[in-house]
C-alpha cells in the first residue's frame, strides 16, 4: 500500500540564522527513514507523467520503486542510465516546474519529493563508494566538447559511455562551468561536482583546462586534430548591465564576478588569494536564482543588510520558490516593484547608494507577464556600499566570431535544429549558448540530445 499522506517529508536544513553565516550546504538531505517513507508515496503510475516533465527522461517511478525496496544502488543505476549528474540535479533542478509538477500526488496534496529522493540516492551512492564505472570498449572515434558546464558534461558523459574518445576543453582552470563558478557552495558543494567529473574521467573522458576555444584553439583546429564532431556548450557567460549612470563605480559588480570570486576563486573558504569586497549594505538587482545566490553569498560574507531590487512583483520573480523562501528566511530584504535608475557615488568612485523608482504593473507584455511601468516622481534611495547586477547574461561571442559558417541569432544564441546541429557541418551546440540563460537540467537535456545525434552521425559516416 502506498503511503497516502498528502505532504512531502520535509527537507532537514540548517537553521536560517545559523546558515546565513556559513557556506556549508543549506539542505542536509533525507535520512534513510525519510527516504523510505517518501518513496512509499509514489503511486508508480503506469503512464508516468513525471517522466515527461524531466528534460533527460529519467525513469522516475523505476528509481523510486527501487528506493522503496531499499535497493539504493539499483535506484542509482536507473538514474545514471539517463543522467550524468544525479547528485547535481537532485540539488539544483527546479523539480516543482518539471517532474514534480506532473506528479499525480500533486493534485490533492504535495507531489512526491522526487528531487529529494534523487539526491538521497546519489549521495548514498557517493558515500558507499560503489564500484568504479566500467570503461566501455573504445570505438576509435574522437569527439571534442567545448565547455565543461552541464551541457558539455552531459554530452561528454553520454558519448564516453558509448566508447567515444571524448576530450572536453575548458577555458577556466577548473572544469564544471557554472556549477563551479556560479552556483554557491551552500547549494551545490564543489566536492560533489569534482566527484561527478572524476566519474567521467573514469569513463575515459579527458579534460583539458586552460584552453579557450576561439583563442587558444579554433573549431577548425579541432577538426584538423582529428575530432570528427564538435559540441559547443559554452554557456551564456557575458554579464549584462543596465546602462544606468554609476555602473562603473567601485563596488558595482556583475553577479558573475561576485560569485566567481567567492566560488571558483574560493573566497568562501577564506583561503584563496583573490580579494572579494565584503560590503556592509548591498543591493542585488534582479529576481532570478543568480540574484538569490548573490544576495545569500553577500549575507554570508557578513553584510548587515542585503536587498533584492526587482522591478516586477513577487509573482513574477523568476527564481525558484524555494530559493526565494530560503533567501527570506536568511534575512534578505525584498524591494519589489522597484527599478534602479542611478547608482550614486560616495567618495572617490565608490558606491554610496542606489536610486530607484517605484513601478506598477501594467498590461501584459510579450512574455505574458504584466509590464512594469515607472511611477512618476516616486524615486527613492537605498543606502548601500555595493551593487550586484544579476539581470542576466548573453552567450559569449568568442567562438561565433572565430568559426566560419556558425550562424547565431541577433542576440548571440547559436542557431541549431532540434537535435542541436548548428549551421556548420559536424558542429553541435546546446545549453545556454543556444537558449540564453536557462537551467542546468535544460542544458543537460540539450547535451544528451546532441550526444545521440552525434552518435548517429558518426555511425552513419562509418
Amino acid at each position: 500500500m502506498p503511503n497516502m499522506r498528502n505532504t512531502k517529508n520535509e527537507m532537514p536544513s540548517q537553521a536560517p540564522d545559523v546558515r546565513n553565516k556559513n557556506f556549508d550546504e543549506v539542505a542536509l538531505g533525507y535520512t534513510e527513514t525519510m527516504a523510505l517513507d517518501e518513496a512509499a508515496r509514489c503511486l508508480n503510475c503506469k503512464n508516468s507523467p513525471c517522466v515527461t516533465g524531466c528534460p533527460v527522461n529519467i525513469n522516475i517511478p523505476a528509481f523510486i520503486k527501487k528506493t522503496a525496496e531499499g535497493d539504493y544502488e539499483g535506484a542509482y543505476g536507473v538514474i545514471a542510465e539517463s543522467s550524468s549528474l544525479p547528485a547535481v540535479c537532485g540539488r539544483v533542478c527546479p523539480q516543482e516546474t518539471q517532474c514534480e509538477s506532473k506528479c499525480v500526488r500533486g493534485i490533492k496534496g504535495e507531489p512526491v519529493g522526487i528531487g529529494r529522493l534523487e539526491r538521497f540516492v546519489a549521495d548514498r551512492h557517493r558515500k558507499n563508494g560503489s564500484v568504479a564505472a566500467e570503461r566501455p570498449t573504445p570505438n576509435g572515434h574522437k569527439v571534442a566538447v567545448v565547455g565543461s558546464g552541464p551541457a558539455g558534461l552531459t554530452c561528454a558523459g553520454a558519448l564516453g559511455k558509448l566508447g567515444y574518445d571524448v576530450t572536453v576543453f575548458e577555458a577556466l582552470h577548473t572544469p564544471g562551468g557554472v556549477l563551479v563558478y556560479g552556483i554557491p557552495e551552500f547549494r551545490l558543494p564543489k566536492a560533489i561536482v569534482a566527484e561527478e567529473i572524476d566519474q567521467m574521467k573514469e569513463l575515459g573522458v579527458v579534460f583539458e583546462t586552460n584552453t579557450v576555444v576561439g583563442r587558444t584553439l579554433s573549431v577548425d583546429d579541432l577538426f584538423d586534430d582529428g575530432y570528427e564532431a564538435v559540441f559547443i556548450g559554452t554557456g551564456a557567460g557575458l554579464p549584462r548591465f543596465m546602462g544606468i549612470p554609476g555602473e562603473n563605480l567601485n563596488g558595482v559588480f556583475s553577479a558573475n564576478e561576485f560569485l566567481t570570486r567567492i566560488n571558483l576563486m574560493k573566497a568562501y573558504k577564506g583561503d584563496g588569494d583573490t580579494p572579494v569586497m565584503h560590503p556592509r549594505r548591498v543591493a542585488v538587482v534582479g529576481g532570478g536564482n543568480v540574484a538569490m545566490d548573490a544576495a545569500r553569498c553577500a549575507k554570508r560574507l557578513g553584510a548587515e543588510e542585503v536587498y533584492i531590487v526587482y522591478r516586477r512583483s513577487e509573482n513574477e520573480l523568476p527564481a525558484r520558490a524555494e530559493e526565494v523562501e530560503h533567501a527570506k528566511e536568511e534575512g534578505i530584504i525584498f524591494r519589489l516593484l522597484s527599478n534602479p535608475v542611478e547608482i550614486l557615488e560616495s567618495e572617490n568612485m565608490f558606491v554610496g547608494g542606489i536610486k530607484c523608482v517605484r513601478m506598477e504593473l501594467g498590461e501584459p507584455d510579450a512574455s505574458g507577464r504584466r509590464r512594469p511601468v515607472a511611477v512618476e516622481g516616486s524615486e527613492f534611495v537605498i543606502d548601500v556600499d555595493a551593487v550586484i547586477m544579476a539581470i542576466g547574461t548573453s552567450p559569449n561571442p568568442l567562438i561565433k566570431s572565430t568559426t566560419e559558417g556558425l550562424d547565431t541569432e541577433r542576440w548571440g544564441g547559436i542557431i541549431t535544429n532540434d537535435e542541436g546541429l548548428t549551421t556548420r557541418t559536424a558542429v553541435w551546440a546546446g545549453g545556454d549558448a543556444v537558449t540564453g540563460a536557462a537551467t542546468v537540467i535544460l542544458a543537460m537535456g540539450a547535451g544528451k540530445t546532441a550526444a545521440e545525434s552525434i552518435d548517429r552521425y558518426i555511425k552513419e559516416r562509418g
Partner: protein
Amino acid sequence: MFKIIEKKELNPTVTFMKVSAPRVAAKAQAGQFVILRVDENGERIPLTVAGYDRDRGTVDIIFQIVGATTEKLNALAEGDNIHDFVGPLGRPTEIEGLSKVAVVGGGVGCAIALPVARALKDAGCEVHSVVGFRNRDLVILEEEFRDVSAKMKIMTDDGSYGEKGLVTDALRSLIESGEQYDRVIAIGPLVMMKFVCRLTEEFGIPTVVSMNPIMIDGTGMCGGCRLTVDGKMKFACVDGPDFDGHKVDFDEAMKRSSVYKDFEKHAREETCRLLKGGNANA
C-alpha cells in the same frame, strides 16, 4: 602545469620568464595577454605577452613585483611550474599598413611595448621608441628597443640616465621637430597614457593605448575589466586590450584600478605604482 624554462632579473623589481606553453605560443600575437595562476589557491592575473617562440613553444612574460601574487611568481625558479597559464587572450595590436609609428613605453609597460615595436618593424614600419623610467637602475630592455627602433629616446625622472624628463617631453620634441607619425602607441601607467593622449590629441595623431585592468577570467565573463570608451561600456579582455586612447575615460580607469587597494598585501604607495607602471592586478 607550465614549466619555467628561463628566468632572469631585469631590474630589482622586474622579472623576465620564458614559459613552456606550446598552444599559447602557437597563436600569440603582439598586444595579446595571458592569465596565470601561480598555485592551487592563486589569484588569476593578466600579463601581456612579452614575446613568443612558436618553434620552441615558449611564451615570455615580464612582470613587476607589486603584490602577493607577483611575489609568489617571482619566488619560482627555472624548472618550476606555473599552475595555470591560459591564452592568448584579447585582440592583437593592429600593425598593418603603418609606415611610421612612435611607440611610447613607461616602466614595466615597456615589456608590452617591445613586442609591438618588434612586430611593427617586422612589418616594415619605421619605429621611434620613447621609453621612460624613474631612474637608471630601473631601465629595462634598452638593447632590445635599440634593435627595433630607427630613433630611440630614454627618459628618466631624475635624469640619472638618458634625458631628464617625462616621455611626453620627448614625444613632444620629436613631433615638434617635424616627425610625422601615422600613429602613437602608448603602453604604461594609466597616468602616462592619459598624458600621452592629451599631447597627441593636440597634434591630431591617432593614438592606441593598451589597457590592463583588473579581471578574472579574461574571456568576457566577469565584466570586472569594464571601462568607458567613447561613452560606451567596453570589456578590456574581449573588446581590447587596445583602445583609441583619445576616447578612453582614464580618470575612471584609474579609480577602478584601485578598488582592491586595501586588500593588496604588498601594494606600494599608489603614486609609486602609477609611476612605475605596475597595475593593481599585476
